[in-house]
């Protein structure tokens, strides 16, 4: 492999379905051996992007480069990609072994070799002994394993997965997420995985790209996307962020003061081009917010807290979410781990939400 080129490179890619613009000038670059996740709301264009990389349709404009070659004009069978579909893509008239070996027999490998390689791959995905079954005799999770084996046995260096776990139930999805991650580490090829589920994305991804409305909103390491989202949309889609909107009151060096519900908040400017009077968005993850009863000690000027009215608490087992309403009706969630025997405040009582310096993030549109 040529180390200079990224394994997958998408340049100014657009795709229209009639009047629907499913992708708008997307640029993307994925390195060899990366586990890359395309995350976003459904209808955002993830599948379209993945299928364009796989060659299942032609881009309206732009290019796809795989392993340093322009492949936009090539059909799927001429590309160095393999693919796992959401569900029901196994060949029902063939056995499990027949499914896995199909690509190898197309490549005219000797029968014995096809068989050995297929069995080895089935063993790798944990389906040894299932060779002679038909797809309909397997559970959903097993069927997806067969799809994985069928794709991996081809020995291509890019694997595309379109919502591979979406048809599975929650527990199985969690287990298989980890397995996918381990499998990718073992085979070492590039995985591009499409999902709308952020937990799934966080579990498997080295890097995540957020796709919405046909645009690549933001990309970065999974941890960075979660902890330090650049864009307001990212904050709204990943994790559980509180979103506020306010007006810039002043800009002093690296510190911006934003008025939210008549209360000043200070936030790091992050080199963003903001000016006084502009409308901006603020985000803060719910686990970084602490709720305290309002004791009237008037610490409101510290710029790191907001006064409001306690409304309710929601018990979720592992965590407890307190909700505080601001004067304009915006709900702020404070999420805490662990049990507390202290009785919750009375609904309607005055409360204050506060956080540590640096927890609040500024976004401009």
């Amino acid at each position, binding site marked *: 492999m040529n180390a200079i080129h990224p394994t997958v490179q998408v340049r100014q890619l657009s795709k229209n379905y009639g009047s629907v613009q499913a992708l708008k000038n997307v640029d993307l670059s994925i390195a060899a051996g990366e586990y890359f996740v395309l995350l976003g709301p459904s209808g955002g264009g993830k599948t379209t992007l993945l299928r364009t990389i796989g060659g299942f349709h032609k881009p309206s404009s732009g290019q796809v480069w795989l392993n340093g070659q322009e492949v936009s004009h090539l059909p799927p069978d001429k590309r160095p990609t*393999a693919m796992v*579909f959401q569900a029901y*893509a196994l*060949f029902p*008239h063939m056995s499990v072994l027949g499914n896995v070996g199909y690509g190898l027999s197309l490549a005219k490998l000797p029968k014995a070799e096809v068989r050995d390689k297929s069995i080895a791959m089935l063993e790798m995905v944990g389906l*040894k002994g299932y060779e*002679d079954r038909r797809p309909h*005799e397997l559970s959903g999770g097993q069927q997806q394993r067969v799809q994985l084996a069928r794709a991996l046995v081809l020995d291509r260096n890019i694997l595309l997965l379109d919502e591979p776990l979406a048809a599975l139930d929650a527990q199985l999805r969690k287990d298989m997420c980890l397995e996918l991650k381990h499998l990718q580490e073992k085979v070492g090829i590039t995985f591009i995985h499409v999902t709308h589920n952020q937990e799934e994305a966080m579990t498997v991804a080295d890097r995540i790209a957020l796709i919405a409305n046909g645009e690549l909103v933001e990309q970065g390491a999974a941890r960075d996307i979660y902890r330090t989202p650049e864009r307001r949309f990212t904050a709204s889609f990943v994790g559980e962020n509180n979103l506020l909107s306010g007006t810039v009151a002043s800009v002093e060096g690296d510190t911006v003061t934003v008025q939210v519900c008549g209360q000043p908040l200070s936030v790091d400017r992050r080199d963003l081009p903001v000016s006084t009077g502009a409308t901006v968005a603020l985000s803060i993850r719910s686990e970084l917010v602490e709720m305290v009863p309002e004791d009237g000690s008037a610490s409101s000027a510290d710029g790191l807290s907001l006064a409001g009215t306690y409304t309710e608490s929601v018990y979720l087992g592992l965590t407890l979410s307190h909700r505080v309403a601001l004067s304009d009706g915006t709900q702020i969630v404070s999420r805490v781990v662990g049990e507390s025997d202290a009785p919750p405040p009375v609904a309607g009582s005055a409360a204050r939400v506060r956080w540590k310096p640096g927890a609040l993030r500024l976004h401009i549109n």
Partner: protein
Amino acid sequence: MDDYANIWLHRAKWAYLLLVVTTLMTPVFYVMYISFNENGFGAAEYVFTTRWYGLIFADAQLMNALRWTMSLAAVTTVLTIPMALLAAKFYKATRAKVPVVFLLLAPLFVAPDILSAALLVFFKNLNFTFRWLGDQLGVSFMDGWAQLGFTTSVIGLIIYTIPYAFVVILITMGRYNKEQTEAARACGATGWRAFWDIEFPQIRPGVFSACAFTVILCFNEYTRTSLLKGGFDTFTTVLVSQMLNSGMSEQSYAMSSFVSFVAIALIGGIIVFTLLRSEAAARRAQPVAEPGTRSTAAA
């Protein structure tokens, strides 16, 4: 039927169904019954014989007609089925479904005698045009192109059978998931290989049924063939002209029964074959469908 349904209502439905079918088929069964009677229609005494069938098969003119019928059926089937298959594939792929369906089913909406008369006039004009063109150019090879005969009959039969073949194939295709084709492409198959290895085996029962259907339709067809056939005779045209000229003879009964037997055997064969296949599939599924002995964490 569920456990709480009225058993008598259930039986009444069955009785109704049987009554309808028997009423419809009784005349045919009666013809078959007579065709084995030595003394023919209306005789007081019934003596079983296969003599009338023997007469058919000994009759050179009839055997020749039968050969024409079978050739027509074979050629029409060979041409119609791939066309219907292509049409069904196109239908699945296109977004303009209504026009496609309308165009393909249009022959069903036109009465057979009108359609064949129209074709007859069309071929006559075409023939005239070809001859005229040939005369102008001083060549004669085009003279036979639109002459009534085997080719024109086949064209008439294709127009007649293609809607049926299209619908039958389309129904089996409806169950096919096109992601399988994409999966095959991703495995390295060309479009043609993916169709042949993955899609075709799954729609094969529909294609076979469409073949059988087409054969039967050609075999039983009279109107279009008789108008478009030109010089030769088919089994049904002989049968009809016999009935019109000399009324029903014992031999006509045998011929009618023979045509029905062929149709029933073909359809029955398909039904039995389909039932056996699905039963075999169910039997194969059972023993292995038990949970595996190894870790079922994935199950």
